[in-house]
């Protein structure tokens, strides 16, 4: 599936958001996710199916002011 993950277009073998995280090597407990600009809670990732062109954001804690 062609997804835009954190701004980069890429081919990802995954049907759900949970599978995207697993395929890309993320620890699902330490990131927060959004699809097409909407927050997707961790508990909802397995039921969140994706389509070609979806924008997936995977965020983690960082320094901030």
């Amino acid at each position: 599936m062609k997804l835009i993950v954190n701004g980069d277009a890429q081919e990802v073998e995954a049907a759900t958001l949970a599978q995207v995280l697993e395929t890309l090597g993320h620890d699902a407990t330490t990131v927060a996710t959004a699809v097409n600009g909407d927050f997707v809670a961790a508990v909802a990732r397995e039921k969140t199916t994706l389509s070609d062109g979806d924008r997936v954001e995977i965020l983690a804690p960082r320094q901030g002011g």
Partner: protein
Amino acid sequence: MVKFYETEVDSRLMLGTALYPSPSIMAGAFKVSGAGIATVSLRRESGHDKAGQDFWSLVGGMGVKILPNTAGCHTVKEAVTTAHMAREIFGTPWIKLEVIGHTDTLQPDVFALVEAAKVLSDEGFEVFPYTTEDLIVADKLLNAGCRVLMPWGAPIGSGLGLSNIQGLKAIRAQFADVPMVIDAGIGLPSHAAQAMEMGFDAVLLNTAVAKAGDPAQMALAMARAVEAGRTGYEADPMEPRDMASPSTPLIGKAFLE
């Protein structure tokens, strides 16, 4: 002791976690200053990069309250979605709400700020809005559900100190019972002390410490300035006057002509 949304915090100094030369120097600045609240952000992470986990482990071990921000967000939707993500990752209803309206000055878009504050407050967030000293905006933020206000001292990262003293005095006086934090613009310990002398409840700063030649020393200086300024405020300062007034009694002075 200062209270934000029923949470009491010992220190009135709040520090950001960005721009330090190294994570250990950042941790050292927090330790030496006793700052009780740390601001953090959320940023993109790749599956190979575990920087987020490393950072979170470090900050989580510092024993401070975490205040996630929505830095860099320019719209209500961006800010609200970021807040949702932050609440899940950081496990706190606190959110430092930034909705930036101008790229060069990083001035908040106060119209979007009020709108986002209403959405988030209604959802149970405890919103710390980064705002200007505008009284009407402050009133609308309070009506939106905010119980803390964070007016800027000067543009983020500028180090200019308090640019609009009269405006800040007015907002302090107008909303005397609202916990209020001077957020952004502090460059020197004297700026922090000035804010505290004016009756603000805390200061939040980042660049002034992180970009100092010795961040830990500057963090210590800021902590002392905040404490001195607050103590001075509580001591009820004298009223300034235009003319001199002798402090040594004239009565009893010898006649020596």
